[in-house]
């Protein structure tokens, strides 16, 4: 009785190890389930096929690179987003960039491209302005002849300063012709990039407000007069 119970308590199933060969395994299923209905045998074989296929796929995938899914931690994400916003506000990017650019201008990393009248020079040159005005006029006429007429507004603005500074620098270096040629070349290239800008008003909001529209109109009006003078 005791042994009987023990036997009954065991699994009423028998485990058969199928062969590694797919076709032989299918045959073995058929042999082992010989008196079972056809439908059940078919379903068994289908299940077996599914299992072998996904085992094959697993083995293939482990050889390739596997994408590791890292769960996003919500609290951390929220915290980082909020901190990023605050950091953006604290950064004041536009001001920082503008400051850095002006610093670089002051430290002369741009060399001779931008010739702005520096205040010290301004005050020193105000006396010499009267004297050099005739010279600068002559230079301006020469340059008008040589350069292209693509973008005159900016050119006028730059040249006025050019003449002042070049006078000063002449006294030091005595290299007028080479400097002027360099400046002309760079101006031509600068004009190429300026002409791209010319049609639209792409500068940012505050810059657009402060950009003197008046200046452009004024210069265009005077431009034909200088041209006729040169001609």
């Amino acid at each position, binding site marked *: 009785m005791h042994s009987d119970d023990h036997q009954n308590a065991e699994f009423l199933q028998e485990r058969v190890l199928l062969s590694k060969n797919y076709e032989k395994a299918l045959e073995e299923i058929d042999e082992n389930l010989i008196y079972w209905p056809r439908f059940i045998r078919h379903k068994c074989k289908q299940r077996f096929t599914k299992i072998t296929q996904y085992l094959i796929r697993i083995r293939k995938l482990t050889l390739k690179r596997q994408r590791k899914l890292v769960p996003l931690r919500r609290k951390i994400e929220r915290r980082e987003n909020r901190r990023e916003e605050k950091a953006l506000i*604290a950064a004041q990017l536009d001001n920082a960039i503008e400051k850095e650019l002006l610093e670089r201008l002051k430290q002369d990393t741009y060399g001779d491209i931008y010739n702005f009248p520096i205040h010290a020079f301004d005050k020193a040159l105000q006396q010499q302005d009267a004297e050099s005005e005739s010279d600068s006029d002559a230079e301006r006429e020469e340059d008008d002849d040589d350069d292209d007429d693509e973008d005159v507004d900016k050119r006028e603005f730059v040249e006025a300063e050019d003449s002042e500074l070049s006078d000063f620098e002449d006294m030091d270096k005595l290299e007028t012709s080479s400097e002027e040629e360099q400046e002309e070349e760079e101006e031509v290239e600068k004009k190429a990039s300026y002409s791209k800008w010319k049609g639209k008003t*792409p500068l940012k909001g505050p810059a657009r407000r402060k950009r003197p529209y008046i200046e452009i109109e004024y210069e265009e009006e005077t431009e034909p007069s200088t041209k006729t003078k040169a001609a």
Partner: protein
Amino acid sequence: MAGEGSGTVPGDGAGPPAPERVLFPPTFSVSEIKNKQRRHFMFLRWKQQQRKEKLALKKKRRKEREALGDKAPPKAIPKTIENQRVYDETTVDPNDEEVAFDEATDEFAPYFNRQTVPKILITTSDRPRGRTVRFCEQLATVIPNSHVYYRRGLALKRIIPQCIARDFTDLIVINEDRKIPNGLVLSHLPDGPTAHFRMSSVRLRKEIKRKGKEPTEHVPEVILNNFTTRLGHSIGRMFAALFPHNPQFIGRQVATFHNQRDYIFFRFHRYIFKSEKKVGIQELGPRFTLKLRSLQKGTFDSKFGEYEWIHKTSSVTQ
């Protein structure tokens, strides 16, 4: 009913307008009213009172300042995180010799000695979606001498030797998740450090308001702000090594990496000097922010790499 001793309890909702100075018995607090509507009303009234008091205080202080005139004490500087930060010992001193020596002999030395020209390979993770692809293209226009290649399931381990063979100096991999780019791996090639960033707020060119025309082919300048500590210094050098040495000032383009509270903001602008004290900038090009997650010593190797630095949240194992 001990807590509910308020002198003027309103009927429903609206109630009488708040008197000038509400008298509360000393043991009263707004949170002790059980009725939500009444509690809400009392709280609003309390808030209004607080605001009035604050305004009155401000006015009084301002009057005192004006009255004192020149003798007034200087205005207090508001405390910000930048003000209150504990001084970081790893801040690099510009004259530090040890740092200078390190930098002369580290992996970027050939770049900074102008022996190598940067050549960059930009790629993505598998199967990039439209946004990532467009972002890669725009990034390629921003960084000169860079090429975009599709991944197509190739393993990074195998790409890297090929890149080295073809003389690439840097590899950028943009990781994508759910159709938006969210990670960036920047690896300096001939065995250089690999930095893994988390990328956020990516804006493509068309999403930037008031932008200008496309970035031209000129080599932009580079601005690196606030990379002060040792770690910041090495990351800053990594970014600097992406761009060629000779910026073409004619192009008037500048790429900025601004580090603020461990977030690196990337912007790409075109500038114009309107006078010697004023410059106008116009944003072109994509923008994104990066947060460093880890810095590895060698090239990309997630399993066996030697990590120089890992962010706390990334390294926590559960």
